[in-house]
């Protein structure tokens, strides 16, 4: 069965995405810049907003998830492409040193490995993830998250409890 990709004029499509987010979630700060719809949400609403993007607006592709350590809080960026020129950038900020956020794997299955990578590198716990384990670092006895700003690259790291 063939997948139908969005058609028509890019600007009207972007406006319809923006209206969709505003009507359903009241995200008044969202704007259109060039071919990008910028959406800023509270961390609790991320799955709902992404479900709207996928189910109602038909945005099929989650390109990547970036986590940025702001020392005290964590920014999480979700980059969605509609595969025909439109981009939706969803940004959220998690307060606190031990970040927890709901998973989006049930909406975009490709988020599986992106979230695993974020967990590995930043220790962001994705609630409800089916298979949250490290991608790159050692599975056992390694208790660090290398991309945190508190992790200094010149320090030698030890494996706790491993001989």
């Amino acid at each position, binding site marked *: *069965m*063939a*997948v139908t*990709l969005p058609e028509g004029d890019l600007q009207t499509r972007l406006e319809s995405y923006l209206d969709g987010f505003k009507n359903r979630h009241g995200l008044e700060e969202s704007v259109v810049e060039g*071919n990008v719809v910028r959406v800023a949400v509270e961390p609790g609403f991320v799955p709902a907003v992404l479900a709207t993007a996928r189910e109602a607006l038909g945005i*099929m*592709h*989650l*390109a*990547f998830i*970036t986590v*940025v*350590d702001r020392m005290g809080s964590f920014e999480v*960026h979700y*980059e969605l*492409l509609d*595969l*025909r*020129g439109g*981009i939706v950038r969803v940004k959220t900020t998690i307060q606190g040193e031990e970040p927890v956020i709901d998973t989006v794997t049930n909406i*975009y*299955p*490709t988020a*599986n*490995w*992106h979230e695993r*990578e974020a967990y590995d*590198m930043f220790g962001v716990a994705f609630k409800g993830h089916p*298979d*949250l*384990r*490290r*991608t*790159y*670092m*050692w*599975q*056992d*006895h390694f*208790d660090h998250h*290398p*991309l945190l700003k508190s*992790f200094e*690259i010149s320090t030698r790291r030890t494996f*706790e*409890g491993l001989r």
Partner: protein
Amino acid sequence: MLKDEKRVESITLSGRESGRLANPDIRDEFGLETLDMNMGPQHPAMHGLLRLILELDGETVVRCDPVMGYLHRCQEKIAENRMYPAVIPLTDRLDYFANMHNEHGYVLAVEDLLDVEIPPRAEYIRVLMCELMRLASHIPSLGFLMLELGAFTPILYCFRERERIQTIFEAVTGARMMFHYIRIGGVKADLPPDIPQKIWDYIEGLEQRFQSDFVDLIQGNEIFISRTRGVGTMSQEKALEMGLTGPPLRCTGVDFDIRRDYPYSIYPELEFDVITDQAGDVEASYRVRIAEALQSIRLIKQCLEKMPEGEVMGDLGRRLRPAEGDGFGRVESPRGEFSVHVVSDGSDTPYRVHYRDPSFCNMQLLQEVIPGHYLPDIMPIMGLIDPVSGGWDK
């Protein structure tokens, strides 16, 4: 020592409780259990350093779990401690079959932050180099696919072509693989005066050899067809769900190419077709790669014909201090969408660099597609995705 609850948590997280013990019903009618097997990381046929934990029922795979990290260098962390231009040689080491595309993606992200104007000649040289790189990646990937099926001859033809393209790169950039050629604001140096003619001669020759060396030799071969047709078949929904891009997505029939749909550089001025195929199996991905290589030849010819005269480096300060904000770069690498997200805090080093590598994202397919196939079919499916170990391990 780790605390007990942490150990229990890590065992749960590492997936040891899944698979055989969690699914006792995959025993067959004789009550026989399945067999766990490791494939790689040091496997002669494996694409780089990848370990697959396989669960076998006879010769059929019931579970496949890729384990990555054997080549992880934490490039994102290293990049946070270097100045903006000094990250470019690191990006060469990411996907070492698409070095130019990595450089291009990173440079586009930084230029997005800086808002500089690139001389048109530099843009043409960038696209020319990227398309040569695509040829030098697509053609050997056919050779690897055939090598995995047990045919040794095609890889000799493929590496002959790659060798000649590398000679061109050596004349232009001074290096054969790790180029450091595309710079922020332009390219390192202009093309040597005799190189455009040499590229033209080479491309003309390749076009003549192409049919006999890469199509007639492979496409009708009985063994090739029986090993690849219907292997690794996936639907369009599955491919989009798994976040595939590049030839693995296009071989299912989804018409998506960054060069056309999210245009960058001078691609809007050039004519090319986006190649799709309907079958969505290994053979279709081979046909897509063959046809894309021909499109690259077409693009290279247009670049050489249209290339304007002029400077190749924009005017930038010696020390780059982009304003605070986010920069995004997105290019179509031979394996799919390569995106870079650079976060600046106003200093001369990036605050955060994130690479979205197509090898990493496309490999999620292994978990979904390999179960149900025979063990020897794993290698053709790896040839469908064609991942590069430096890419998925960053």
